[in-house]
Structure formats: C-alpha cells, structure tokens
C-alpha cells in the first residue's frame, strides 16, 4: 500500500498545471471564476479546441479514437488541475456519454462520422433520456419511433435536456416496440438537431437561469443509419452509458476549488469585528467538510485503483456520487453562510455574491440529476449490501 503519487504522476500533474496556466484564456477563466454564464457555449467550445490542439481533447478515450489513453489516475489529476484553474467544464454529453456508446456499439461508419467532431469540438451533443413522466424510472419512457421505410419517425417529448439550445446533435432513447416489456422495446437513436419537427422550449430554473429545455419531437424523420446497436436493444446502450457517465463523478476538483474559495471568503468576511475564519463555530464547520472531502479523495483513489483491476465501474461509484454531491452542496451552503446577509442580494455585482448564491441554488440539482441520491442509495443497499 502506498498512497503517494509516483514521481511520474507528479511530473504529469505539473505538466497539466503549467499547460492550463499558459493556455487557458484570461477572459474565459474570469467568467468561470465569476460564474458568468453569458458566453458559456463559446467558452466551452474554445477550451475544447485548445485542449484538442494539444492532443488532450478526450482524456478518457483510448488512443485509437484520438484520446490520450491516460489511466484513471491521470484523468483524476487532469480534472483536478482544470477545476483548480477555473477552466470551463468539458461538455460531458459528447465526450463521456454518447462517445463510449458509439465506440462500443456503433458501426465503423458511425465512429468515423461522429467521434472526430466530438473530439475537436465541432459537434455539440445533448441528451434525450428523461421525460416528464419518467425520471428515476427511465424505462417507463414514452417517446415513440416508428419505422417508415429507411427512416424512423419520432414523436414525443424529452425533458431535462441540458444546454440543448447550443446542440448540433441529440442522442435519444426511444420506444420502438410498445408491446414489449418496458426495457425490451427501447432503441438508441442519434438525431440531428436541425431535422424539421424538433422544437425546444426552455425551462426556467430555480435560480432564474435557463440551462435546461424540453425537447418536442413532431414527426421527426431520422435515417435508420442513425440507430446505434440493434433495434430494441437500446437499454443495453443506456446502461452502458450510465456506467461511463460516472467517471470522475465525485467531483473532487470542483469541491477543492470551492473549498478554497470558501476559505478565502471566510478570511475576508468580518463578523463581530473579526474575520469569520476565526469564529470557532464556523471554523469547525469548514474543518469538518474539509475532512470529509479529504476522506472522499482517498475513497475516490481507492475506487480508481480497484476499477483499474476489474475494468467496469462498480456500484461503489454510487458512494462517490452521493458523498461528492453532498460535500459540494455543503460547501456552497457554507459559502452562503459566509456571506451572511450579503447573500440576500442575488442580482448585484461583486464576484462572490451572486456566484455563491446562484451556485448554491443551482447545485441543488446535483443530488437530483444523474441518478438521484435516493436511487444511488437503493443501488448501494441492493448491489453492495445485498439487501
């Protein structure tokens, strides 16, 4: 047992740190730091192109498809460094979600057609999984796709589509056999967002922002060549995708960054005439969440180590999801507490104020999206504890 990173890994981390420091544009970094989402799509695309130009467009892909082929430890270090430097996220929908499905179940033609354009940031992907009536119970989805010659005709409605307003493509789970058992009659379809009959309706969120949409499909014609895997075998793709979505699910990088921000905010805030950071009760809260984060970092590395030997992500990922989101949510809560009454002003100026309050509200989603924490606890109880 040795919990230290190897000299090679440390050198790698330094290389990433130096690269990000040198190549992340100041204006993008500034917006991420301020929580300014006004140019989010452009920022994400530009950063993807910069990474791609350096050969780091897809750190979780194998080399054969243009990825870096890095192991999970290096992926972990990479995400931590990017988050610490306030780099934008890389959009997961192409890189982490549809791409692994296409690599595993797609035809060589599909791989050649779609993967390079995900890698270089040309295509923006979005997701069509959940529906208004089927959230946690995904298999109950109702969007229909009927075969008509060499096309599928898609009708229905998807919900919780994140950033689809910028998207070129959407991957969808659709029902191709309404008579089969719920999980049997589902197919995995790639749909060009410019196809006639697709309409987006933005959903205004809790925090007042628009980042998700409802997507309506009205007789949308999709070439059968856009089917991934076999017809009615889409549930296999769906589960495979959900497994891969869980890479770096603990969000250690983001939590570390926000913890550092919290410490700075507590040092700057004055309460009863002295820095809030010196208030013993508040300091104890910070110390507590910092410890929980430290423990989760080690847990994350343990899971990475175990996965490297067993290949597939196991149900332990549920623990990373739950604890990771709880910890980040707790940090955002403490940021609001650090602001105190100043947090009342939501639409004001100041770097920390709207960012911290908006983030606190927005990140309530963490424990809901991506398989709610309730579902994750079910998984631990049933898969890990065998209850």
């Amino acid at each position, binding site marked *: 047992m040795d919990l230290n990173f190897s000299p090679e890994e440390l050198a790698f981390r330094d290389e990433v740190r130096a690269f990000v420091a040198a190549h992340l544009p100041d204006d993008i970094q500034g917006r991420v730091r301020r929580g300014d989402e006004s140019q989010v799509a452009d920022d994400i695309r530009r950063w993807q192109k910069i990474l791609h130009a350096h050969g780091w467009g897809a750190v979780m892909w194998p080399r054969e498809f243009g990825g870096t082929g890095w192991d999970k430890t290096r992926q972990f270090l990479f995400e931590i460094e990017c988050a610490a430097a306030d780099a934008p996220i890389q959009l997961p929908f192409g890189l982490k979600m549809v791409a692994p499905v296409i690599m595993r179940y797609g035809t060589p033609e599909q791989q050649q057609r779609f993967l390079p354009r995900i890698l270089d940031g040309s295509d923006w992907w979005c997701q069509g999984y959940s529906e208004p009536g089927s*959230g946690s119970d995904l298999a109950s989805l109702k969007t229909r796709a009927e075969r008509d010659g060499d096309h599928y005709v898609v009708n229905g409605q998807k919900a919780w589509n994140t950033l689809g307003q910028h998207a070129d493509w959407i991957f969808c789970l659709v029902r191709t056999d309404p008579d089969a058992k719920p999980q049997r009659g589902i197919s995995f379809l790639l749909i060009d967002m410019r196809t006639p009959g697709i309409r987006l309706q933005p959903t205004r969120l809790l925090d007042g922002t628009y980042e998700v949409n409802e997507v309506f499909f009205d007789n949308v014609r999709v070439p059968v060549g856009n089917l991934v895997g076999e017809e009615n075998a889409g549930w296999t793709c769906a589960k495979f995708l959900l497994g891969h979505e869980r890479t770096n699910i603990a969000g250690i990088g983001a939590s570390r960054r926000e913890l550092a921000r919290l410490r700075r905010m507590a040092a700057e805030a004055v309460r009863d005439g002295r820095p809030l950071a010196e208030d013993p*009760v508040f300091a104890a809260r910070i110390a507590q969440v910092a410890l929980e984060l430290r423990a989760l970092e080690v847990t994350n590395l343990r899971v990475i180590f175990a996965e490297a030997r067993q290949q597939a992500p196991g149900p332990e990922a549920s623990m990373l999801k739950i604890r990771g989101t709880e910890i980040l949510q707790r940090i955002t809560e403490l940021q609001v507490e650090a602001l105190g009454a100043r947090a*009342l002003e*939501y639409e*004001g100026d100041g770097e920390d104020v709207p960012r911290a309050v908006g983030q606190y*509200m927005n990140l*309530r989603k963490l424990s*809901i999206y991506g398989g709610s924490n*309730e579902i994750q606890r079910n998984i631990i109880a049933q898969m890990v504890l065998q209850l």
Partner: protein
Amino acid sequence: MDFSFTEEQQMLQDSIRRYLASDYPLEHRARILASEAGWSPETWRALAELGLLALDIDEADGGIGAGPVGTMLVSQATGAGLLLEPFHSSAVLATRVVSLLARGEQRATLLGALASGEAVAVLAHDEDGGWFEPRATTAEADGDGWRLRGRKARVYHAPMARWLLVSARTQDGSGVFLVEREAAGVQLRPLRTVDGQRAADIEFDLRLPADARLGGEASAALDEALDLGLAALCADALGVLDRALATTVQYARDRVQFGTPIGRFQALQHRMADMYMQVEQARSMTYLATSACEGGDPAARREAVSGAKVVVGQAARRVGQESVQLHGGMGMTDELDVSHCFRRLLAFELRMGTTDEHLHALQALARAGAA
C-alpha cells in the same frame, strides 16, 4: 394556557387567505415578479380595503389593533400566499415604529396614509456588518435640525416607499428619523433579493428638520418593533413552510415511478415525517415568540424571538432543500411553487439577522443571564 384564536383573529386570517387564493395565483404573481416595479399597487389597495394595513395600528388611532397574535395569523397567510407586496415592511414594521414613536399631527398623518394604502413606509435599519443596532448611521444635532449620515443595506421594499424611517445613532442613544425617499441627499441603489423582491442599499447625507425625529430616544421602541417584525417574519416563513410541506406531500402522492406513487416509498415517507416535525417545531417557536411580544419583559421577548428565528431558520433550510429534492427535477424549475418557497425560505434565513447571528445573540443573552 390557550392555543385557540378568537373569532375575530380567525376572520382576519381567513379574509387575506381567501383573497390570495382567488386573486393571487402563481401566474399572476409571476407577472408581478417580472414587472418593472415588482409589486402590484392594485393588490396593495385590496389589502387596504380588507383593512389589513391598519392591522397594527392601535384602536385609539382608528386601527384594528390586532396585536401580535393577529399579526402572526395574517403573516402566516402572506407567507403561504408568497405575497410580494410590502405588508411586512410597511404595515407591520414601519407602522409599529410610527405607532410607538410619533406624536400629534405627524402621527395622525402618517398612520392615516399608511392605513389607507396611500403611502408605503419602510424601516431602514439593517447595515452591513451587523443587524442588531445602527452603527454606521448617525444623526447629529445641526442648528435646529439634524444632520443624517450613513448607509443602510438591503432595505426591503425601499424602492416603493414614500417614507423611509431611518434608525441612527444619536448622542442620547438611538433615534428614528422620517425621510422622504425622494429627498435630496438620499441615494438608492435598487437591487433584487434572492426571493425576487425589490430592495435597496441607501446612502444618506442630508439635513432634516427637528420634527423629523419621531419621538425621543428610540432604543426600546425600536427593539419592540423589531421583535414584533421578527415574530411576524417567522410567521410568514411558517406559512411558506406549510405550503412547501403540503405541496411536497401532494406531489409525492401524485407522482408515480416504478409503478408506485413515490409517497409510498418508506425512505421518502420518513423524510417527509422529519419535515413535518421541523415545521411543527417552527410553529411552536413562532407561537412562543408571538406570545412573548405580548408580554412586558424585553429580555424574555428577545430570547424567544431569537430562538424562533433560529428554529424557523433551520427548518427553512432543511424543509426548503428537502422540498426541492423530493420534487426531483421538477423541484429545480420555477414552474412549480416549490422553487418560490425555496427562495423565500432562503431569504428568511438571511433577513433581519441570519440564523448564526441570532444563535450568537442567544448565547450572549445566556452568558449575560448567567453572569
């Protein structure tokens, strides 16, 4: 010991409840929220017609004199209805300050305008760096008048007020000064609060006539009005908590996943049971604070009120978060009322002294009591 309400008190609550249920649906409220002004003068007039703006004016002054209990019951309804109009700021806080301090003709003029809805007044009290006392705002005698200087922070509903009642340090302690919002030397920086309401930071640097000071040394009156205002704010939050819990329970009954209403899942049942207990504990402390506002002992009143602010604030945090969580994705949208409850509960935690500030105050009171 008596937890019942008089028929009159009950009628007051029913009248505002009925009005909000029929004339203040969520879509209507959304339009007010999105409007430039952020409030509806029409609604304000309706509240005046219901007599609610005279709620905290003594009967001797021609008001209802509903007292802390009546104020609590109406405030529960304004919370449950997610009312945006400045009922709490003007008809409770400012009106009580005027009632406690103003005299003679000024008193009659002010109370008359407030009761009729003709004018809105707000108490400008909060400052950056602490809630409990005015620190950075001062009034110095200046000839036969006053020089008022300072800065107030996040004054709810200031942009729609005609009058600002400004608390300030004076040579003899504290004073409250009547200032026209539009007077020269008054600078508003309007802002929106986290619950979508309109407020402002305000800078003062102006000369005021002698009679701008309401009454004399105002520390005790300020404390009394602020405590009543806090108790009423707790009651407002209690109304929001009731709505958040009810809407969550209803959603859990209706929402089907895996072929079952999610309200049948035991883990969610237990969490809603915890929410229920949080709300009931918040109710008890709101009652206690209200009752203390009827009593004569300022120390006991402050202790009960700060205790209520903490317990209701903690319930606001947990019930707010759990309501969103149990709504799943729908809880993240602003379509349902749950997100608006969440934001108003968050604002409650932060307003009129944060949960932490009141917890500190309680401990200081306990130390003072032990010493």
